[in-house]
C-alpha cells in the first residue's frame, strides 16, 4: 500500500513536471485509481478472495484462510486457500483441452477432450476435504523450510466430475500398475519449459476409489483458474498436492511415480520418528498418504470478549483423512478436563464433519477453548506439536481460540 501511495505521488509530481503545472484535481483522483501501467496485481480481486485471507507468497501465489473465514459447511471460493508450486497457466482454451492417459501400465494410450469426458462417463458430486500437507508448518521448532502455513490451508468444497477409475478403466489398466502420476499445464518458476513445478500422484488403491474425481466443477460452477480450471484431479483426505490442478495427462505407472515433488523430502516424513532437528537421509523418508485427524473452531473468531453469565456457542469442523471423526471434545482449562460435544456424520466419505457446543465459564478471566477430535481408530489430536519432521508436515495439534469473560 505504501509503495502504491509513493508511486502515485511520484506519478502525480512527474505528470506535473511534464505539464509544467500542478495537476489541479490531482488530489481528487479517485481513491484506488492508479494509472494502468502502475497497477499492482490485487490478489483478492484477481482470485475473488476475502480481504482477510493472508498472502504468504506472491511468486508463486500462496494464500491461506483464517479459521473464522472457514465457518461455512461448504467452503466458498472466497475462503479457499491457494497453494502453487509454479506459475498459474495463462490463456487456457477449455474447448481444445485434452487429457491423455499413458504410462507403462496403460493398455491403450488414449486422449479425451473435456466434452468427451463429460459425455462418455457418469458424473458424480462429492464434498471433499483438501488440506495442504504443510498446513500448520509455522509452529514447528526448529522451523521447517517452505511457506509458513498457520491453520488455514484446508477447505471442503463440492467437486463435480467423472471418476478417475472409469477413465483409467476405459483406457485399460495392466496388472502391473502401481501408481498414477499427473502432469499439468503450470509453469516452472525458473521459466525452464523442461521442468515441471509439480507432478505427484497416488497408489492405484486411492486412484480407484469412488470419490477420486477428475473434476470440472467446484461448488456447481467452472473451477476457478487458481484452483485448476478446466480439469483437476481431486483426491480427498490426502495431502492436497495429490489433487493436481490444470491436469492434461495422467500416467499409469508400473512403479511409484517419480515426478517432481515425489522424491527427496517433498511430501515425505521420516519413516521412523526422529528428534527435533535431526538429519534424515532421503532414503529414510516415506511418502505421506492419508492426512491425520484434525479440527478447527470456526466460530467465534479468536479474541471474543463476553459478559460474565452469558454462554458461548462455538462451532467448527473436524476431519480425519481417509477415516471418520468419531468423537469431538473441547476444554476450557488447557486440557485438565474435556467435555464431549456432538459431531455430525459426514455428508459423504472424505467430507469434513461439523461440531457445535454451548460453553459456560465458571468465573471472569482469560480462557482458551481447545478442540480435540478423535478418529475411528481411537487416535486423537495432540495438544502439543506432533512428531517433528524436516519439512514440517502433518501438524494436527489442537486448534484453540482466546476468550475473555468480563
Amino acid at each position, binding site marked *: 500500500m*505504501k*509503495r502504491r501511495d*509513493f*508511486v502515485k505521488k*511520484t506519478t502525480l*509530481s*512527474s505528470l506535473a*513536471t*511534464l505539464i509544467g503545472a500542478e495537476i489541479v484535481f490531482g488530489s481528487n483522483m479517485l481513491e484506488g485509481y492508479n494509472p494502468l501501467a502502475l497497477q499492482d496485481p490485487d490478489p483478492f480481486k484477481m482470485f475473488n478472495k476475502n480481504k482477510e485471507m493472508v*498472502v*504468504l*507468497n*506472491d*511468486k*508463486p501465489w500462496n494464500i491461506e484462510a483464517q479459521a473464522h473465514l472457514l465457518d461455512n459447511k461448504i467452503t466458498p471460493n472466497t475462503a479457499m486457500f491457494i497453494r502453487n508450486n509454479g506459475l498459474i497457466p495463462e490463456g487456457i482454451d477449455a474447448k481444445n483441452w485434452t487429457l491423455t492417459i499413458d504410462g507403462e501400465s496403460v493398455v491403450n494410450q488414449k486422449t479425451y477432450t473435456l466434452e468427451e469426458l463429460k459425455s462418455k462417463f457418469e458424473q458424480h458430486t462429492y464434498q471433499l476435504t483438501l488440506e495442504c500437507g504443510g498446513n500448520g508448518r509455522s*509452529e514447528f*521448532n*526448529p*522451523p521447517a*523450510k*517452505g*511457506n*509458513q502455513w498457520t491453520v488455514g490451508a484446508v477447505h471442503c468444497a463440492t467437486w463435480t466430475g467423472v471418476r478417475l477409475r472409469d477413465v483409467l478403466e476405459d483406457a485399460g489398466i495392466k496388472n502391473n500398475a502401481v501408481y498414477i502420476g499427473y502432469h499439468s499445464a503450470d509453469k*516452472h*518458476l*525458473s521459466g*525452464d519449459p523442461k*521442468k515441471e513445478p509439480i507432478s505427484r500422484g497416488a497408489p492405484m488403491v486411492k486412484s480407484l476409489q469412488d470419490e477420486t474425481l477428475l473434476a470440472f466443477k467446484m461448488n456447481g460452477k467452472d473451477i476457478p483458474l487458481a484452483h485448476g480450471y478446466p480439469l483437476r484431479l481431486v483426491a480427498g483426505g490426502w495431502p492436497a498436492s495429490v489433487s493436481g490442478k490444470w491436469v492434461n495427462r495422467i500416467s499409469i505407472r508400473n512403479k511409484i511415480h517419480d515426478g*517432481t515433488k515425489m522424491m527427496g523430502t517433498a511430501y515425505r516424513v521420516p519413516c521412523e520418528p526422529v528428534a527435533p532437528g535431526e538429519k534424515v537421509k532421503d532414503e529414510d523418508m516415506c511418502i505421506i498418504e492419508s492426512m491425520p485427524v484434525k479440527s478447527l473452531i470456526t466460530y*467465534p*473468531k*479468536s*479474541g*471474543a*470478549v*463476553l459478559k460474565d453469565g*452469558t454462554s*458461548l456457542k462455538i462451532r467448527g469442523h473436524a476431519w480425519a483423512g481417509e477415516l471418520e471423526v468419531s468423537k469431538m471434545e473441547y476444554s476450557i482449562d488447557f486440557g485438565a478436563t474435556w467435555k464431549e460435544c456432538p459431531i455430525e456424520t459426514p455428508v459423504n466419505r472424505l467430507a469434513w464433519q461439523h461440531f457445535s457446543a454451548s460453553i459456560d465459564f465458571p468465573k471472569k478471566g482469560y480462557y*482458551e477453548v481447545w478442540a480435540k477430535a478423535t478418529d475411528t481408530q481411537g487416535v486423537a489430536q495432540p*495438544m*502439543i*506439536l506432533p512428531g517433528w519432521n524436516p519439512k514440517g508436515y502433518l501438524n494436527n*495439534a489442537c486448534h*484453540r481460540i*482466546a476468550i*475473555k469473560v468480563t
Partner: protein
Amino acid sequence: MTKEEEFKKYAKKVYHLMILVFSIFIIAGGATIYYINDPNFSAFKNNTETIVTTPEEGDEDLIENGIHVRTGLVDAEGLMTVVNNCTNCHSAKLVMQNRMSAERWNETIKWMQETQNLWDLGDNQEIIVNYLVTNYPFEDKGRRENLTNIEWYELEN
C-alpha cells in the same frame, strides 16, 4: 606613414584574424564535443522522457524506514546481493518467512541449484547467508507457543 606605423597596422590585422580563426575553432570544437555527447540536441528540446523516468528509477530500490520497499527486505549489509540473486524466481516473502541456520540455508541453496536452476553464487553465497541469519534469525518456539496478536472484540450474542 612611417614604416613602423605600417608594420603596427599589419600586425593588428593579423592579430584580429587570428582571434577570429581561434574563436571559430573553439565554437566548432565545442559544438562537436556537444554533438558527440548529445546527438539529438535534447538539451534544447522539452524532453519529457528523461524527466519522467528519473523518479521511477529512484523508486526501484527505495528504502523507507529501513525497509527495501519493492521487496520488503530489511536494509542491511548484503541487501542488494539478496535482492539480485534471491527474488528473480520467487518472492522475497518466501525468504523472509523462513528462519534457518547458515548450514540449512546453504543446503537450501544447494537444493535450489540442483532442482530450481539457481546459478553458482560464488563469493555472494557467504554475503547472502550472512544477511539472512543476521536479519532473519532463528527463534526458539518450544513445543507450543502462547497465542499472540489477539484482536479483542465484544461478542454480540
